[in-house]
């Protein structure tokens, strides 16, 4: 227990360094990854990080030729940045100048640059006593053995990203949502695009040598994608993405500090993936559960309204009186069943659902009587639906035969304002007759109600 405490609250120097570094990297990449996600370029980090490999090999060769140690970090970083940026440049070039799409452009740059990297490293291995071994670990990272310089580097880049996205917030936002509009305003779209990708490259290159290829790719994608489920507002999304990146870095790095046998990068990715899965299911703005339950609620509401209208129209037909002066009497289950294409099971379920809303007075399996509130609701629903149908017929130039019960689904979501507008347009106060002809004998029914 004591060790858990010590690790989670960063009481040891080594864990503190590693955990803080991954948190900072998570925040920075969550932030810049959100822009990538919205520009549908999430895999840019993937292409970019692979494109760094030839730079590392070439930098090594140059440094060895210059007589220096081939593994000096700044040199390798510069090399990686140069080919990384060249890779990004090629992606933009291919995408903007030819019919090849973003995804193929990224695939091409990734594979060709990585191939070049493999070839260059193949040549480097043959340099006698240059100790090139382990060069490729540069792109596989070393999470658990970071040093203070790595931390400083990461913090510097994170700060850069933070400042740049704060300053260019408006520009980046417009670039993400409407590139064409940004161009028509005369903004330097290509230059902004390059600045954004340069920031991505900076995060990728420093992250690469600190935590490795897979983790940096995951960090650029997963927090942003998870944040998207919680909010529809870009500003909030940036904050949530940064937070998710930071939290998964913190939890993942501390967990792996507690379980030293396990690779830190993998644990962090899995923590982020778990957060993503949770967001996918329970996210407040676009989570699956929320969307499904909203759909189920709407479907129930529509079903209830159909039931009420059916009962009301049966009453209308049976009593044969002026609309508006109907009395609430029981109707038979079979009659309702005949009116629409419900199965008995479905109809029973609808009645249950209406009962929960207090719309049913009693139902004994044969006869069905609406409650007072149900009767009122039935009258109101019927009226709204008919208003809408008549609006479609008279004002929207839709043939009466096309205004059928499922085509005009808007009738279920009419707002009070809309109903008032319809009343005004159609000049109707009471409940109009059904434009379908009472009892819907068939498609060819005479439209008794449309005598406006």
């Amino acid at each position, binding site marked *: 227990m004591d060790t858990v405490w010590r690790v989670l609250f960063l009481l040891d120097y080594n864990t503190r360094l590693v955990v803080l570094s991954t948190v900072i990297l998570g925040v920075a990449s969550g932030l810049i990854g959100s822009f990538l996600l919205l520009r549908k370029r999430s895999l840019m980090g993937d292409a970019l990080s692979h494109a760094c490999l030839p730079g590392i090999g070439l930098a090594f060769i140059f440094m060895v030729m210059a007589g220096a140690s081939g593994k000096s970090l700044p040199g390798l970083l510069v090399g990686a940045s140069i080919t990384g940026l060249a890779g990004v440049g090629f992606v933009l070039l291919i995408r903007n100048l*030819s019919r090849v799409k973003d995804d*193929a452009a990224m695939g091409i740059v990734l594979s060709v640059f990585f*191939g070049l990297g493999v070839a260059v490293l193949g040549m480097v291995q043959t340099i006698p006593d240059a100790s090139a071994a382990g060069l490729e670990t540069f792109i596989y990272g070393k999470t658990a053995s970071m040093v203070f310089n790595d931390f400083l580097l990461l913090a510097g880049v994170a700060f850069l990203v933070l400042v740049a996205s704060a300053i260019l917030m408006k520009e980046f936002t417009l670039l993400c949502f409407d590139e064409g509009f940004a161009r028509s305003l005369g903004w330097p779209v290509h230059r902004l695009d390059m600045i954004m990708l340069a920031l991505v490259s900076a995060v990728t290159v420093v992250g690469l040598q600190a935590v490795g290829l897979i983790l940096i790719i*995951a960090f650029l994608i*997963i927090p942003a*994608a998870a944040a998207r489920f919680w909010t529809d507002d870009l500003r909030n999304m940036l904050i949530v993405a940064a937070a998710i990146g930071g939290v998964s870095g913190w939890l993942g790095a501390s967990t792996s500090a507690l379980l030293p046998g396990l690779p830190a990068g993998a644990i962090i990715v899995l923590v982020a993936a778990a957060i*993503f899965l949770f967001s996918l299911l329970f996210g407040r703005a676009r989570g699956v559960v929320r969307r499904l339950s909203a759909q189920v609620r709407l479907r129930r509401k529509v079903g209830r309204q159909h039931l009420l209208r059916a009962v009301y129209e049966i009453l209308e037909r049976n009593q044969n009186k002026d609309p508006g002066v109907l009395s609430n009497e029981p109707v038979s289950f079979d009659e309702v069943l005949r009116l629409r294409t419900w199965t008995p099971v479905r109809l029973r379920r609808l009645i249950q659902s209406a009962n929960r809303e207090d719309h049913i007075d009693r139902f004994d399996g044969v006869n069905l009587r609406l409650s007072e509130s149900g009767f009122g609701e039935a009258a109101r629903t019927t009226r709204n639906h008919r208003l809408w149908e008549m609006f479609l017929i008279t004002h929207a130039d839709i043939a009466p035969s096309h205004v059928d019960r499922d085509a005009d689904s808007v009738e279920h979501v009419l707002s009070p304002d809309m109903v008032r507008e319809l009343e005004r347009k159609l000049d109707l106060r009471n409940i109009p007759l059904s434009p379908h002809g009472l009892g819907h004998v068939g498609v060819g029914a005479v439209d008794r109600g449309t005598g406006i």
Partner: protein
Amino acid sequence: MMWFSLDTWIVVIGALCAVACALPGCFLVLRKMSMMGDAISHAVLPGLAIAFLVTGSRSSIGMFVGAAVVGVLTAVFTQWISSWGNVDKGASMGIVFTSLFALGLLLIVQAADHVDLDPSCVLYGAIELTPLDTVGTITIGSTVLEIPRAFVVLGVVALLNLLLILFFFKEFRISSFDPELADTVGIPSGFMHYLLMTMVAVTTVASFEAVGSIIVIAMLVVPAATAHLLTDRLGWMLFLSSIIGIVSAGLGHLMALTVPGWFGFKDTNTSGMMAVAVGLIFFAALVLSPRYGLLGKMLSVRRIEVDEAEVESEGEEVPKVI
């Protein structure tokens, strides 16, 4: 530079791999899912690890099945996340493959307590070594040919891909260009999608186990994109991409033997150079393609400008169409 029968085998195997990848690759490029090869080749790690933990051996059949199953699952999960969560395809691909790779890494570390299983040696076959791993010999006339295992594996995969694409050509074409139309005319576009993904997964796993992952990722995307720059017809695109793949396999091996010599090195990795070679061919097509190349476009823009200039200089005589 010396050329041995070994080198011929390397080129033949590389070419077979290129054809096997380029055929389904055309559809990946058309469906804007080019990164699938990259995603699958990372994502299969847990499949390898589980197959190893279950069978307890490094037999290639078990590994192959495990990897292929996880490869198909990668496509399935990607589809689920992007359709249920409304997530961009690329992003959901990235989420799936990074998570699976991380899971695989954990499993391998667990397994490593029992036996040595180095991910890089499982993941990256080396094309230079393939001719040494033979399955049998054929005698043609007086020469005895030792048939490498990779040749058989990749030959079967390439043939299978070719037959499937020939057999389902119409279905693949319609469901790639217009899935809604495919559904309305009764072609199950969902089934075609998963069939394609299965082909990609099997091809990817078979090839990288034999020759290394970098060739696979390159050959899935680059020949297809190059062919896309050269033609508008799907049949031609499939044919051209195969040819481009074959040429770049030969060119790549040649470059691996010669290019390092120019800089004072001995030789280098063939699979890397094959990727570079196909990249060079793509670049040439990008510039020189008659219809979609940069040069062609520039010339046609020039021609229009010249025509306009002539029209203007002729002045009044030309009727103005507004």
